[in-house]
């Protein structure tokens, strides 16, 4: 709604030009290899600015892992990939203390979770014990092993992928774990035109050759500065009430046995501010909230067995709730 026929009358109170320029450059770099999936890329950028983690869900072969790798490439930060398997142990992820015979003392060997951008591939393949090892690090950005707490360096961003189709050999993520993800993004199939472009890229062998040629455009210092800017985005009290009303409505809906948590309200607020900033606005509108609310809440609510049997999707229920809640105006 910010397009004006004439010259815009209002000047932004925050300088968001640097943020927009950098994010445009990121989109451009990622777009060199990733065809389509614009919304997913934008939501990943929103989550980086909101200090949140993302769960990517999609059938195999829709560029979930490639997107995460590209995102890590465009950010000048450490990257590690953990392939979750059924025999993975918490110590394989967090790290463990090993006895050093020279020094005659135990030394902590950090696991792959000690990085800036972490790609957890197929998170639902590891058992609950290993998944639970992520609770502390995802929420508090610290790891406690052998009674010693170690802080993570900033930025700290976890991108996890999971396949919704396979049930055998997978472990459903517990609610507490799901609640720690800011967004659950569903990655769909590309359009016919986009698929032709993908084929063309492969035909010209772009993917194999150019993955290393992606240039980093965003530094950890940039991310920290942009997060500060996002924090200053204005939110009217009526808009805050609107968020609270949406989240509260999920707790009363007949099709849901579990509504969204207060953490979901906070996530909607923070992500809406980042989304507004990305669009060059220094204030949040109900449009931002409507757009953000579904990916924030879709993994935090639980449908009743009757609704599941009727084939109702959590997205449908959330949309129905959002459409019923009065927009502040």
């Amino acid at each position, binding site marked *: *709604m910010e397009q004006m026929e004439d010259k*815009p*009358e209002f000047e932004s109170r925050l300088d968001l030009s640097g943020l927009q320029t950098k994010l445009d450059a990121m989109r451009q770099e990622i777009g060199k290899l990733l065809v389509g999936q614009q919304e997913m890329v934008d939501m990943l950028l929103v989550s980086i600015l909101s200090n949140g983690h993302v769960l990517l869900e999609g059938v195999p072969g829709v560029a979930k892992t490639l997107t995460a790798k590209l995102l890590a490439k465009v950010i000048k930060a450490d990257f590690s990939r953990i392939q979750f398997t059924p025999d993975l142990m918490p110590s394989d992820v967090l790290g463990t203390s090993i006895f050093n015979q020279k020094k005659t003392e135990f030394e902590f060997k950090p696991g792959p979770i000690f990085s800036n951008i972490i790609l957890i591939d197929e998170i639902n393949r590891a058992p609950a014990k290993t998944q639970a090892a992520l609770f502390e690090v995802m929420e508090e950005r610290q790891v406690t092993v052998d009674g010693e707490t170690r802080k993570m360096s900033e930025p700290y961003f976890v991108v996890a992928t999971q396949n919704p189709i396979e049930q055998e050999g997978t472990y459903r993520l517990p609610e507490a774990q799901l609640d720690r993800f800011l967004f659950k993004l569903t990655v769909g199939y590309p359009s016919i035109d986009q698929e032709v472009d993908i084929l063309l890229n492969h035909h010209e062998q772009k993917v194999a050759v150019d993955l290393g040629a992606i240039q980093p455009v965003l530094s950890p210092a940039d991310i920290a500065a942009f997060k500060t800017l996002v924090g200053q985005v204005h939110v009217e009290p009526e808009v805050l009430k609107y968020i609270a009303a949406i989240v509260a409505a999920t707790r009363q809906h007949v099709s849901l046995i579990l509504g969204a948590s207060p953490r979901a309200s906070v996530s909607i607020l923070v992500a809406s501010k980042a989304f507004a900033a990305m669009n060059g606005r220094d204030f949040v*509108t*109900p449009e931002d909230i409507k757009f953000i609310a579904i990916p924030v809440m879709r993994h935090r609510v639980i449908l009743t067995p009757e609704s599941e049997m009727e084939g109702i999707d959590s997205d449908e229920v959330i949309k129905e709730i959002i459409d*019923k*809640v009065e*927009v502040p*105006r």
Partner: protein
Amino acid sequence: MPLVKRSQIRTKKTRKNIINKFIIILLFLSLSCVGLSAQENSSTSEPAVQEAREFNESRIQELKESGDFDYVERRDEPPSLLQRIMGFIGDLIGGIFRAATSTPLGKLFLYIALFILVLVAIIKIFSINIKDVFYGSADKGKTDFEFLEENLHELDLDKLLVEALAKEDFRLAIRLEYLKALRALSEAQIIDWEQGKTNYEYLYQLETESLKQPFKDLCYYFDYAWYGDFEIEKPIYDKAKAKADSLTQQATREEAKVA
């Protein structure tokens, strides 16, 4: 070989055979003698006294009375503890009912109790919410507060606008101009007014191209004034008002066309 020697050897063999036969006969006779002597001994000993054993009647009676040896299937087993308790409760309720039905007041209480029981059963079977019955069914998806104090169509926007302009509250004035335009579009059935819809959704509903840009511009002013909390001066209000007036006029024309 000389003849004498042969006869000597034959004699030796015969002698051996005779000795062997003698030993066998001797053994046979000795064993027979042992058997005969045994027979003689037994026949000569005194006959044993046979004791006649008798049944112990008390023991037999005891075994007869023991359940362990009772193989007859019992069809009428004694009632279990639970059955006895249920029977007691049944008798108690039966007693109460018998007592209740004996008086008119008792009958009345009985009918009331039966009515309540049927009502509870209906409520449980059809999962009826009592609150909904007495206070009207609350839409569970709807929130318990509203941002607009009244329905948009019932607000006296002109009066409120005059008051806002008198106070030079241009921020509020832009909001009221926006609401006026929204109401005009709704009354002209250009948009389908719903409280949960955002400006972007209303924009999608606009089919007339000439309405789209003024609506976008008006929403721009409203967004910055109302959600952005920007300082609004009179010139900006005037621009917003011009957009709102343009929309309202077009909406009126569209309404007239339809009529």
